[in-house]
């Protein structure tokens, strides 16, 4: 079988780490793409039987409905404390949190920073769509300046609501972090890059280097009041300026080279 045929089969088939249930996320939401990338990586690493998924409170509270791995739903913001408890109790397991911006960067900021700073051997996928999606589009810690939401109807004013928080830049200041990268999946060519970033964050845990996190800039067409194409364009034009893409911490690539891992 040629490589192209293998790729085609991979693209056309359902990853084993997903259970086949149709996603219930809104049209144009990026959760579906990122779920699939995570599931593909779980399959590629052969981790399905070792994975513990910690879903957050937010739209992806339903993540467990779609992934065919053991897991739980943490209290709002506490996913990384729950993950810490799991990993400390059972270090042989592969522990993954999947969190949104309100969860990870507002109510759970303390848990996020301390788990990262302890270098917990867990991996976090962080979805930043600049709003609270599940509760109906309220202002998030990552809402852009001037952006209108249901709780910032006059637009986010830094004098009143402060500034969007930059978690990857914060991660750079924490020695326990082994991998931190900000990516997007709004254009097809972004997707393999995002997958590679998440792969490195998996390796941060699997090679015992430290905490791994990937921030994915994502759309929320429903709460942004746009169609999916418009939302992707808006992300490209606005979010990428506020939240620069790129690798913020990488202690993993070197260890991969040392250990001969590709």
């Amino acid at each position, binding site marked *: 079988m040629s490589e192209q045929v293998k790729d085609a089969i991979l693209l056309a088939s359902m990853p084993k780490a997903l259970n086949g249930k149709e996603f219930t996320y809104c049209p144009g939401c990026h959760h579906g793409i990122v779920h699939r990338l995570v599931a593909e990586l779980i399959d590629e690493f052969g981790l399905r039987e070792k994975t513990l998924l910690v879903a957050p409170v937010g739209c992806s509270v339903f993540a467990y409905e779609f992934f065919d791995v*053991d897991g739980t739903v*943490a209290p709002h913001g506490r996913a990384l*404390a729950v993950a810490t*408890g799991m990993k400390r109790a059972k270090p042989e397991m592969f522990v993954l949190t999947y969190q949104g911006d309100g969860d990870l960067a507002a109510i759970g900021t303390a848990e996020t920073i301390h788990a990262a700073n302890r270098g917990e051997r867990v991996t976090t996928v962080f979805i930043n769509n600049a709003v609270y999606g599940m509760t109906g589009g309220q202002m998030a810690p990552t809402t852009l300046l001037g952006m209108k939401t249901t709780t910032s109807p006059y637009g986010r004013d830094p004098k009143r609501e402060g500034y969007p928080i930059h978690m990857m830049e914060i991660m750079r200041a924490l020695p326990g972090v082994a991998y931190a990268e900000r990516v997007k999946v709004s254009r097809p060519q972004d997707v393999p890059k995002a997958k590679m970033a998440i792969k490195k964050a998996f390796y941060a845990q699997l090679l015992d280097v430290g905490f791994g996190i990937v921030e994915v800039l994502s759309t929320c067409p429903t709460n942004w009041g746009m169609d999916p194409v418009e939302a992707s364009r808006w992300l490209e034009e606005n979010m990428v300026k506020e939240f620069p893409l790129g690798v913020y911490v990488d202690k993993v690539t070197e260890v991969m080279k040392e250990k001969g891992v590709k």
Partner: protein
Amino acid sequence: MGEKIMVKGTEAIGEAAIRAGCKVYFGYPITPQSELTEYMSRRMPQEGRVFLQAESEVATVNMMYGASSVGVRVMTSTSSPGFSLMQEGISYMANARLPAVFVDVVRGGPGLGDIQPSQGDYFQVVKGGGHGDYRLPVYSPSSLQEAVELTIHAFDVADKYRTPVVIFADGMLGQMMEPVEFPDPVDPSTLPSKDDWALTGARGRKARYVTSFDIDPYKLEQMNLVLQETYKKIEAEEKKWEEFMTDDAEIIFVAHGTVGRIVKSTVKMAREKGIKAGLFRPISLYPFPYERLAELAEKVDIVMTVEMSAGQMLEDVKLAVMGRAETPFYGRLAGVIPTPAEILEAMMKEIRR
């Protein structure tokens, strides 16, 4: 069983947890229980087990949630303000049916309060400080030997019913020294398997979730009904109390924990004066031993509650007595410890009334 050794209260509880097979301890410093956290930081690594100081009590309870969900025995200890911070996580653990042991070394409140012994957390601990329909088995020891036995028992009850359990202690118990006999460590291979529900990885079976969540109210109601069934069993099987000189008593004191111990002296003083007093000491605060207290109340005129609070257990005493006897109350607040003599004086006032 080994020989008797002198230990401090906090160490007695910590060592009991280790012997009960506690594999993971998370904690955050707070007076008057920090010695227990310190003890675990020394002892757990010696046993090849996990100690981790969390960044807050909020993180602590969620780390416990994680550790319990993968099937290990887990404990924390804290004091009142810290226990308040844990309520959200405890509510989640109750509905996710996650076993764990919490030690609340109660101090004077409300607010920052003080660091002296108190029983002012009764409502929060016994009636549920978090949201939703849940209960927690609660044990209130009055001596260090009893603290050791109840700590070990708490782990067993937590596993048997899949529920968080609380040891209700106070700073007096934590700081006192007494001779204690420790049982031999539990053989981990004899503990009940948790493989039928714990998150062990979806190996050779369907993936499973431990959760307190269901968006469908009918399914969530079913989860709630499982909890309610569990509480019925706990109420039927897990009531504990001690009676002291109740056989011929004409006045019965009700007091728990260290206050129960103080009231024993009051009972003896009253008997020297020719007043037939007795003590009913609930050991399980939930489930509260209502039936036995109701029986005793039939035979006396006065059932007097004494607490280091403004009268919280008093409400359970009244529910038990149901008007069969007078139910006066004596309490000291905010970390003040009542003396046997002042309790006696309060009793004399009630008798003269």
